[in-house]
């Protein structure tokens, strides 16, 4: 039997109301961090999560159907799934965060320029000088070199957040972590559904042959 939790996670997707979602998103974005509910923090609102789940399933199906004629290697298939999951995640963010815009922009660039990969940063305010900002709020106790190094490492981990001020980086990182947690939950549920149904299929076919 397929667990009801993962099934409900995907089945309720089509009941999401778009207009309600936009008003909920503003409220939940502020409340999301203060919700120290069961174990994990929710990313955005419930309906946004459902929309993400639906889009993920559809996109994954399209990916697998496209790969049929040429037999892909395992790594290529995995990268395709990962790319699809990231892109759908970024689309679900509706372009309100920097990391989501960076993911979407980098995908666009990669499909257009396949020969040479430009490592151009897709920042929305391209004219802003980057070296100016980290030095502006300097001379305070939180600017130890150890902290600065950690900030640099963090800025490399979150996509599209290399030259931004620390406060923005922390905000982006918080949102990115919550989104990744949701992505993991969704993909785990999807994996569970598919693998459990495969077990059912194998069980039923063997019993029918006997």
């Amino acid at each position: 039997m397929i667990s009801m939790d993962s099934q409900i996670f995907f089945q309720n997707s089509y009941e999401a109301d778009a207009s309600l979602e936009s008003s909920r998103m503003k409220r939940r974005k502020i409340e999301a961090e203060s919700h120290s509910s069961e174990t994990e923090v929710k990313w955005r609102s419930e309906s946004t999560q459902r929309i993400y789940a639906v889009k993920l399933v559809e996109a994954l199906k399209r990916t697998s159907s496209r790969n049929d004629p040429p037999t892909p290697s395992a790594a290529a298939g995995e990268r395709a799934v990962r790319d699809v999951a990231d892109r759908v995640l970024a689309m679900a963010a509706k372009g309100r965060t920097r990391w989501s815009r960076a993911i979407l922009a980098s995908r666009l660039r990669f499909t257009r320029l396949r020969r040479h990969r430009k490592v151009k940063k897709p920042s929305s305010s391209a004219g802003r000088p980057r070296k100016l900002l980290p030095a502006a709020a300097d001379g305070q106790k939180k600017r130890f070199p150890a902290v600065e190094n950690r900030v640099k490492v963090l800025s490399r981990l979150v996509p599209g957040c290399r030259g931004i001020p620390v406060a923005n980086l922390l905000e982006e990182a918080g949102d990115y972590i919550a989104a990744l947690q949701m992505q993991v939950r969704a993909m785990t549920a999807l994996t569970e559904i598919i693998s459990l149904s495969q077990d059912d299929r194998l069980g039923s076919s063997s019993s029918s042959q006997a």
Partner: protein
Amino acid sequence: MSSRRSHSRQSGSSRITEDQIADLVSKLQRLIPELRNRHSDKVSASKVLQETCNYIRSLHKEVDDLSERLSELLASLETDSDQAAIIRSLLM
């Protein structure tokens, strides 16, 4: 965003105050499962940042593993049309 008056140092010079950064750091701390149990005052900003980086890396790895698993499952899914129909009927 609430500012803690007792800790205000530079009031007018910098737009981004220490309080805001402390708030954001504590918010990050609440997201990371390892650091959530400890009292917020005892965790330094450096530790929070380090755990944040480790956590993001572990999440990336988990997504990679899951996408590998999913690609295998979807590949085997396509070979059996009955099963694919069942999956679609469940999810839609």
